[in-house]
């Protein structure tokens, strides 16, 4: 890493006036978010520093609200996280790119031709009435998706719309909205649901891809990365203690609400929602919905808009015996070695005595007969 400023990272650091120390700290943080050991922080940093070429990225916006793009680009101040953004080449993004019209579409097609790019999809794909609800440059959303995915290395769906259909798919689903997983079958797909998606999870996914050359580990059913969507909000919730003690907010603004009690009764979906919100929070880890007194709406779960926002959910995902004693567990006193030894010795002695008596029976029987005949 000499001072000629060849590496992308170093250029970026100089341009933003960020120290290398901060960069390393950031890498360690991302490693932590990815649930990697601390030592991986250095590996991540090394891997990123070695990059001399940017990763081409096509960001498709279909039936979306650009909320996820907002979330992704939101930064209160220039930070080490922005460095990661300098490591990708965002070749196509309707909202952010300067070009428009044919020029813009050509950029996308050129990228596709070269290949080796990453596709990020934001928004659901309409399917009813001949896909008329979302067309760009005369092409329907589905066509665009298929064309773009053709030569991609992987597909990342950001936000609930592309991951699970989101708001467009909510009943009665007039556009016949579909998720990416319904249409793309032959590429590795990773879903980063959320309404919007947490920017930390996008950068962490990108860092993982840049460092290891593949997408992070996902669950089989919903294709969500385990590092971010591996545990229930409920299980990491700072208000969990109140849940366990039965201290619930029963009305907005009541005593319990002021004291920060559990929001379950107010319809909090934390007990059924998988997300790392309680850990990474939002707005540069300033706060998050439950932290500010509103229940979780469950935005990282499929079809969350279809559930009444302020009605309590049925808790399903629970795992004995870590959190609840399982049926059939009985009070047991652990058996110590001394008891076993003593009991064994005594049982052995008794059995031995009985056995010995049985064996010696014949030896004495004659003697006994003789004696008995002498009596009476």
């Amino acid at each position, binding site marked *: 890493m000499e001072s000629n400023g060849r590496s992308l990272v170093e250029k970026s650091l100089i341009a933003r006036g960020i120290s290398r120390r901060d960069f390393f700290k950031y890498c360690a943080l991302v490693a932590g978010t990815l649930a990697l050991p601390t030592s991986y922080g250095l590996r991540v940093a090394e891997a990123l520093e070695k990059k001399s070429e940017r990763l081409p990225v096509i960001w498709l916006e279909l039936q979306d609200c650009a909320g996820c793009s907002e979330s992704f680009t939101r930064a209160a101040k220039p930070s080490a996280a922005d460095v990661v953004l300098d490591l990708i080449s965002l070749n196509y993004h309707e909202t952010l790119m300067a070009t428009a019209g044919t020029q813009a579409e050509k950029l996308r097609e050129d990228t596709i031709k070269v290949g080796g790019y990453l596709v990020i999809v934001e928004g659901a794909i309409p399917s009813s009435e001949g896909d008329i609800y979302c067309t760009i440059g005369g092409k329907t959303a589905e066509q665009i998706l298929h064309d773009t995915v053709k030569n991609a290395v992987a597909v990342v769906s950001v936000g609930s719309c592309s991951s699970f259909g989101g708001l467009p798919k909510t009943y009665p689903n007039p556009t016949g909205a579909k998720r990416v997983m319904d249409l793309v079958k032959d590429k590795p797909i990773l879903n980063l649901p959320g309404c919007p998606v947490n920017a930390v999870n996008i950068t962490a996914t990108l860092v993982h891809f840049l460092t290891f050359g593949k997408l992070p580990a996902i669950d089989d059913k919903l294709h969500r990365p385990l590092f971010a969507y591996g545990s229930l909000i409920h299980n990491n919730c700072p208000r969990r203690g109140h849940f366990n003690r039965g201290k619930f907010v029963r009305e907005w603004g009541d005593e319990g609400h002021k004291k920060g009690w559990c929001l379950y009764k107010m319809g909090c979906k934390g007990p059924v929602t998988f997300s790392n919100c309680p850990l990474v929070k939002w707005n540069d880890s300033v706060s998050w919905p439950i932290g500010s007194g509103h229940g979780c709406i469950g935005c990282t779960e499929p079809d969350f808009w279809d559930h009444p926002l302020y009605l309590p959910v049925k808790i399903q995902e629970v795992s004995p015996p870590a959190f609840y004693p399982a049926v059939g567990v*009985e009070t047991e006193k652990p058996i110590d070695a001394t*008891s076993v030894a*003593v009991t064994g010795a005594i049982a052995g002695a008794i059995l031995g005595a009985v056995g010995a008596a049985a064996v010696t029976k014949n030896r004495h029987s004659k003697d006994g*007969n003789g004696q*008995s005949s002498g009596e009476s």
Partner: protein
Amino acid sequence: MTTIVKPVNARRSISIPWGHIFLWILATLGAVVAVYRLFYGLGAATNLSDGRPWGLWISFDVVTGVALAAGGFTIGFIVKILHLKRFYPILRPTILTAFLGYVIAASSVVLDIGLPWRIWHPLVYQNFHSPMLEVALCVMTYTTVLALEVSDPFFEGMGWKSAKRVVEVFMIPLMVLGVVLSTMHQSSLGTLFVLASKRVFGLWKTGYLPLLFFISAVAVGLAMTILEANFAASAYDMDAEQDLLGDLGLYAAWVLLTYLVIKISTLVGSGGVRDLWSGGINNVLYFVEVIGGIILPMILLFIPSIRKSRKALFRTAWIVVLGVVLNRLDVSFFGFAGTPYIPTWMEWAINISMISAAILFYDFFVRHFPIFNNEH
């Protein structure tokens, strides 16, 4: 008749003082452990738990011990009520051992109940629907009855003629009372396990348990009498009354036959037959108990030559006793449902120490008071 007989000269026991010393050590150890149990509680001294509320003390000392002490009322009935005076020589030693057996059972109960200083509560608070109350009151009363019966040779030995005369007046009513009380609580011990039938293994689970317990108590009472006569004969240089014992053996055979018939028919009646081949240690124990503990000694006792041989009769009586012991332990210990339980060394120590103390007391009493006295 009322002449004071000189104590039997126990030459042999003097020549082996080591046995006494050993027994004294065991008895003292148990006394220390008993104090520990009183000051630190049941949880500290025993391996009992909520999943297994009754353990060694109840199964072994109370349920089994009371059965083994059945010789007292059996021989009392034979001698004093049936007027079979020729069995008189073994009346006193048998009643003495029965008394000691009940003292062991009562002491165990004192240590086993959670609040030993409330042992008198059954005299004041009663629920007459409880078989446990019946057992408690009967054991209390019968121990007193036995103490009075034992006081006869005691007063004789001390030379307190007037006291002895008073006891003699009450001797017959005491014997009648002893028979009534024994019938009641020997069977009620079975009733205990009818109400607790959830925990009793299928092969022993029957509503006729009280009847079975009573009949087997009679059988074991006869067998214990045979054993005690033999012990005493060898330890104190006396003749065993072989013809008497042989007759007792024949009675025992008939009782065992009755027991067997009822046991098998109740097994069929209660539907326990389907558990016969269900596999597991309980099935093995059942077969050992029925074939080895009932059928085998029954056949042996029906053979005249075996009844005539002192050794053979002695050993057959042992089999009867072991068979009934196994039965009681099967019902209340081995086949008793609950979480895994192994007694602690302290539970064993108390058990063994009480038996040691009983042997020491027996030895002392026999040597200083007219127990083995053929004149009356």
